[in-house]
């Protein structure tokens, strides 16, 4: 292995697999890894600003626990691996803000299912990562605290809403991270930051403890430096949870077992609606080359059609905002979180929510409230549900002909901070290629597939059938093995 030895080496740059070997061989201690990660954070975080909260003390406690298990030869794949957790997943005793002022001081007395599964397997919590407030946005500019910067170009946004997690992974401020994806919030920032991001099938991973944005669309998934690490994380976080009725009682495979098998004869659908006029030239060129690469590996490209694609963004912004308007009603200043007093109850509600929420969150609450209002429900919410069914059928139809579909993850590479901040519609279009996947409930992964002339990462999205993450992981892994994109690191 070409890894330099000794505690001074750059352990934070490694992936889960490489660290596993070093830790299990006892060539490095968990504390060395944790120290390395925090040294990196100390060096770059003031420029990247990926985190909302750093949990150094907790990390060191967890590290010493993990070390004991390694010393007793009780190693498991994630034991002693430092992860960043998006700050919309509840962590007991550690504040969980959703990057919102309304929850700035909220410390949950309970743990999300995903983090408690990770904790059982001995992960190290490095910190809680930044996001667009309540996961509503595509750039982290909607964070109630600060905007995270893209490690490849600090003038640019990292994408969103899991921009804190993807930036932290890209900048080596953690080994891997968890994000959540409602309309592309894992895949789009993964694409913009040049890392791997997987949105599992809806129902694959428990949502218990994930602060809800849009319950029927939200899904937690891994953000990693390579495809195998994503499979490793999936092995731990996937599976039915009795605390989440919408988590499916479906068997969980060993996702790493799918990796390494070839893709000869794999039918790769290329939806024609996703290669549209006006899309970024460099993105399109990278995708075409990536498709050639997949073909050379034995894949068989086929044009397919997802005819209701044009309606996806509108459908999404009706359904997601409707659910959000209800999910966010609990932040009323009565029980926990921020309260702004008023002369009576109604005024207290109004003041609290006016001051506690940012403008994008308020915009979406208003949209959703409107869509659900009597007299408008049939025209908006109900119609959107019907269109959602049509979009689902598009995917079923396509998947009767192909095994995976390949699309760009995002229409453009990372844009500049402030570039789209005042134009919500332009911002919403950042998720144009990812939204349908959430509406259909199928899994999607974004992996690096090239760079622009000015060194910005470009991502490719592979979409799979319901509960068939294995096939997209297998195809993604095959592509990754044949290319070098994932090895590039940003210079900060």
């Amino acid at each position, binding site marked *: 292995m070409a890894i330099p030895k000794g505690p001074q080496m750059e352990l934070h740059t490694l992936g889960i697999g490489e660290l596993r070997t070093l830790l299990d061989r006892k060539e490095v201690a968990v504390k060395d890894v944790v120290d390395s990660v925090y040294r990196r954070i100390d060096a770059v975080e003031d420029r990247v600003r990926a985190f909302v909260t750093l949990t150094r003390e907790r990390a060191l406690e967890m590290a010493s626990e993990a070390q004991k298990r390694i010393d007793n030869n009780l190693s498991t794949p994630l034991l002693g691996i430092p992860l960043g957790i998006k700050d*919309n*997943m*509840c962590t007991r005793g550690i504040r*969980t803000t*959703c990057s919102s002022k309304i*929850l700035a001081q*909220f410390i*949950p*007395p*309970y743990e*999300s299912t995903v983090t408690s599964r990770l904790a059982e397997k001995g992960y190290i919590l490095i910190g809680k990562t930044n996001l667009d407030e309540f996961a509503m946005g595509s750039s982290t500019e909607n964070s109630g605290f600060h905007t995270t910067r893209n490690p490849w170009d600090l003038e640019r946004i990292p994408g969103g809403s899991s921009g804190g997690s993807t930036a932290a992974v890209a900048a080596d401020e953690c080994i891997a991270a968890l994000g959540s994806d409602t309309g592309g919030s894992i895949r789009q920032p993964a694409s913009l930051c040049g890392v791997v991001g997987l949105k599992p099938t809806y129902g694959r991973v428990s*949502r*218990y*403890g*994930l*602060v*809800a944005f*849009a*319950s*029927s669309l939200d899904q937690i998934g891994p953000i990693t430096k390579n495809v195998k690490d994503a499979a490793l994380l999936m092995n731990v976080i996937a599976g039915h949870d*009795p*605390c*989440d*009725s*919408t988590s499916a009682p479906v068997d969980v495979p060993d996702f790493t077992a799918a990796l390494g098998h070839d893709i000869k004869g794999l039918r790769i659908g290329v939806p024609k609606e996703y290669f549209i006029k006006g899309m970024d030239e460099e993105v399109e060129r990278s995708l075409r080359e990536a498709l050639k690469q997949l073909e050379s590996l034995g894949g068989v490209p086929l044009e397919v059609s997802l005819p209701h694609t044009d309606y996806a963004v509108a459908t999404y912004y009706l359904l997601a905002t*409707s*659910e959000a*308007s*209800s999910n*966010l*009603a*609990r*932040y*009323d200043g*009565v*029980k*926990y979180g921020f309260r702004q007093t008023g002369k009576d*109850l109604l005024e207290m*509600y109004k003041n609290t929510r006016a001051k506690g929420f940012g403008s994008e969150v308020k915009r979406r609450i208003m949209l959703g*409230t409107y869509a*659900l*209002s*009597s007299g408008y*429900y049939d025209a908006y*919410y109900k119609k959107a549900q019907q269109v959602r069914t049509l979009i689902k059928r598009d995917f079923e139809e396509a998947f009767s002909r192909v095994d995976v579909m390949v699309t760009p993850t995002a229409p453009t590479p990372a844009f500049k901070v402030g570039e789209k901040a005042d134009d919500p519609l332009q911002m919403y279009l950042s998720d144009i290629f990812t939204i349908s996947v959430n509406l259909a409930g199928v899994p999607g992964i974004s992996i690096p597939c090239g760079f622009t002339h000015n060194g910005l990462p470009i991502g490719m999205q592979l979409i799979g059938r319901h509960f068939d993450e294995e096939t997209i992981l297998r195809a993604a892994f095959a592509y990754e093995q044949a290319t070098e994109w994932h090895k590039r690191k940003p210079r900060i």
Partner: protein
Amino acid sequence: MHYEAVIGLEVHAQMLTESKIFCGCSTKFGSEPNTQTCPVCIGMPGVLPVLNRKALEFAIKTGLAMNCRISPYSRFARKNYFYPDLPKGYQISQYELPICEHGSLDILVEGETRRIGITRIHMEEDAGKNIHEGGGNFSFVDLNRTGVPLMEIVSEPDMRTPREASEYMKKLRAILRYLGVCDGNMEQGSLRCDANVSVRPAGQKEFGTRAEVKNINSFKFVEKALEYEIKRQIRLLEEGGKVIQETRLWDSSRGITESMRGKEEAHDYRYFPEPDLVPIMVEQEWIDMLKASLPELPDTRRERLVSQYDLPEHDADLLTSERPLADWYEEAAASYSLSISGIAQYKTVSNWVTGELARLLNEENRAIEECPLKPSQLAGLLNLIDDGTISGKIAKSVFEEMYRTGRNAEDIVKEKGLVQISDSGAIEKAIDEIIARNPKEVERFRTGDEKLISFFVGQVMKSTRGKANPQMVNEILKKKLAG
């Protein structure tokens, strides 16, 4: 003009489950505020509901008992509104697809059976309680009740009089209690009743504009509140006014209903399907199993009591109003029947249970479950009457003594020397004394004032301290007075 009222009731019944509808917290009533809560029922960020299967079972059983169609596919919906006792800002309820629909319930009013339609029964979670105490510029919120499972039972507008509404409530309560799914306590709020009321000129087909009357928080107010509201609406119409669609609050201390909010101020609840819960699929097999497990319900039992014990409809109705009361009666009847050789007079048993026993229980506000007497003890008392050991009148005081002390009738009669005097010599002696002492009354009796017989009976009973066999007293008196 003659008016007819149209009444439909919406009843909320708290289910008697051990734990709440979407989390594991206890449903116990009356605990310290906020001690029966968890992140799920207080609506913390990121938590999710999981349906309590027992609540679903109770709702299905109730639906079956009320002849409803049980939906094989139903789902929860969110009802959105802001209130401090509603921690999530929405109530998880059912809207478009309730668990039970199209049922009915029969009531007996003035000897006639009326069938009242049940539109639907749906499940939902209860809210907490706001407590305004301590003066200051603040209120308290107790979330112990938040998430306690409720059934909302909605009737068709099939009732025409307050009396019918009150009979409907009684029957509904009886069924819920027979099933063991709700304790039916209106005062504690485990059974709540809202009424939709309108009036129309007799003969008119269309309904009038309705008002919803809320806060009818006791059985005795069901009729009163409706009577008031109906009168109010009729008066309005007769004065040339109009009934407006609004929500009105029953004020029991003043005996009136008052406007709470009008149609314009009505909430837009923005119902939509609850995305955190999967649709409820109920298999026919389970429905069949639950149907088979239903206890005998009040109507069937009443009919059986009438035919099996030859009871008047009225007695059977009273006895079956509560399952434990009917149980008590049937045990007493069985025990009585076993203790005698001839044919048992079951009506007598009913008289005692619905008469003396009910009176004594009522005096102390006790439920039949708390009755200090065993049914077999009543049978013992009846045996003493049958064999002439005591008179019916003495029996009443013996029964009261039994009730107070829990002792058997025989012991009390022996100890207090209450054995009936059936010795004709002793009775004759007592009668002679009374006749001698009341010559004027004897004279009046003999000249035709026959009503005076009861005066003489009374005097004899008094002098024997009630122990004389009344039948013998009657006979001997008549003979002697006839001279």
